[in-house]
């Protein structure tokens, strides 16, 4: 395979863009802190940081979930671009640390306007919050956040090092079987931890506890679907970018088609969960539950509420339905960007209506912070792509991926 370009060199423009976007992020952070940092207990400032850091952490973490889920399923199609997903998942380390710092600033710093359960006097007089105080307490929050982010990082590193460990040692069939078994075990451990974090407890703590009285058991699944579909969109964007630059010669429309299918399918899955959560609340019409949807559905957030549905459901449904659309690089690029933006908006309307029920405070500050995270992902992923070979050349399933055909 001497004709395959295995080593990515970061193009100058890529580096400039990523550094520029990070600069925009830092500038927004400083300006935002000056403008909002001390106004109204800094609610506006910390809510924006919370939304963006959690969103971007979950979508880069979805890359590692993708690796582990396909490993467990003994899937082979992703092997030609597996190193791209691995590179994206490395961004969990910096973004995870940033998210943890932000969460600690909020919880240890006692930002009661963000999480009302931080206020002890308030909790003592509130029967519902008193009942939840074991779960919604700074101690549990801190311990669980450390475990969540720490184990994502550690298990992710293990999966990546397993993948790189055979780069220079071709395997025999027996060794290949052992290697696959070993991979399966570690992927399974990651998936279990993923189920306990993203798919259940962590979104309850980080996002749902903003509306501390309200709860929904669908919430974490819904967050997971949101982050997974935009994680797939992120993977697709990197694959298309590298393909455009002349790398990843073995990736073709067949792989693009499958990535498009993932985005299509999980957009529908997201809608299913979104609707299941909404319809039960709407049908029962109990005021404890409808309080969550009131500002979103018939308040200031109506526009975002419907835009969210249009971007994340109607657009993927109608545009991605045909086979040709999923095999067209331009359409897939456009849809991937749209989906990432759409789910960013989804996270926006998860966080803000509780703090600002009367108006939507969105302005350039939010977009600046978001662009900063985009720059950080580009920078870290670019470094990781340049450091390691782009092809997992000795993986037993590589051939399956090369001849992949849908």
């Amino acid at each position, binding site marked *: 395979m001497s004709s395959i370009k295995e080593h990515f060199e970061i193009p100058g423009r890529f580096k400039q863009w990523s550094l520029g976007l990070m600069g925009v992020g830092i500038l927004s952070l400083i300006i935002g802190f000056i403008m909002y940092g001390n106004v109204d207990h800094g609610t506006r400032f910390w809510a924006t940081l919370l939304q963006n850091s959690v969103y971007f952490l979950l979508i880069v973490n979805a890359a590692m979930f993708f690796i582990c889920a396909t490993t467990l399923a003994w899937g082979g199609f992703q092997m030609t671009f597996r190193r791209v997903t691995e590179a994206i998942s490395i961004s969990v380390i910096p973004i995870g640390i940033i998210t943890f710092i932000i969460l600690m600033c909020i919880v240890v710093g006692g930002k009661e306007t963000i999480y009302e359960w931080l206020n002890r006097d308030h909790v003592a007089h509130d029967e519902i919050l008193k009942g939840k105080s074991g779960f919604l307490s700074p101690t549990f929050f801190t311990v669980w956040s450390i475990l969540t982010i720490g184990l994502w990082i550690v298990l992710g590193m293990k999966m990546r090092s397993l993948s790189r460990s055979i780069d220079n040692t071709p395997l025999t069939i027996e060794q290949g079987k052992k290697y696959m078994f070993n991979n399966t075990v570690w992927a399974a451990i990651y998936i279990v931890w993923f189920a306990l974090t993203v798919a259940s407890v962590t979104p309850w703590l980080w996002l749902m506890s903003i509306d501390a009285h309200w709860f929904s058991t669908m919430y974490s699944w819904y967050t997971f679907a949101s982050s997974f579909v935009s994680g797939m969109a992120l993977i697709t964007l990197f694959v298309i970018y590298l393909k455009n630059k002349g790398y990843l010669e073995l990736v073709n429309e067949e792989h693009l088609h499958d990535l498009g299918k993932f985005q299509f399918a999980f957009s529908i899955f997201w809608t299913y969960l979104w*609707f299941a959560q*909404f*319809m039960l609340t*709407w*049908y029962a*019409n109990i005021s404890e539950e409808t309080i969550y949807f009131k500002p979103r559905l018939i308040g200031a957030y109506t526009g975002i509420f419907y835009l969210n549905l249009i971007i994340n459901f109607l657009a993927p449904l109608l545009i991605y*339905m*045909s*086979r040709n659309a999923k095999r067209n690089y331009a359409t897939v690029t456009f849809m991937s960007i749209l989906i990432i933006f759409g789910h960013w908006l989804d996270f926006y309307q998860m966080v803000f209506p509780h703090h600002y029920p009367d108006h939507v405070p969105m302005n350039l500050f939010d977009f600046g912070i978001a662009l900063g995270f985009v720059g950080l992902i580009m920078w870290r992923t670019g470094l990781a792509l340049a450091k390691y070979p782009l092809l997992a050349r000795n993986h037993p399933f590589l051939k399956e991926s090369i001849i992949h*055909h849908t």
Partner: protein
Amino acid sequence: MAVKKFVVGYFEDEPELFAGVKKIRSAGYKIHDVYTPMPIHGLDKAMGLRDTSLHTAGFIYGITGTTTALSGIGWIFNSDWPINFGGKSHFDLPAWIPITFELTVLFSAVGMVMTFCYLCNLAPFVRKHHFNLRSTDDQFTVVLELTAKSNEGEIQAFLASIGAKGINTQVAESGWWLGRYDKDKTPIGTSLA
């Protein structure tokens, strides 16, 4: 239905079949059909078949289902028999979505199955000629149609040259007819080899 003459050859293995089909097409012979024991990836491309339109049909059935459900429920709850359900409005979209979804799926699924059966002539008592019974077991059968321009001996020699294991000529119904397998035999299908 038309009774036609066919030259039939079979291959023992998949790679030979692929190479054979490619050579037959480049030599310009008309392939009537290829019968294989299992679905084979890429054979449709090798045979030059166009993409199926079944999914387009499925989409049309699907939106028919959506329209049926929405207009049906809308008519019932708004003009035919308006009932007050717990103070909800009569035009109550969220409550209709599950049924709309079900009817969309039902229409597109049933419609596509029926269309598929129609396209493949599958129905009770519909019979088709079997060129080689072992193509349901372990042989890959290629059937070429004899036209006015093609020569039987020449095609047989050609099939032999590209490695077909068994070759014969059959006169058979090209379409379908009604009948039952245990009672009647193929009306014409006589093997000449």
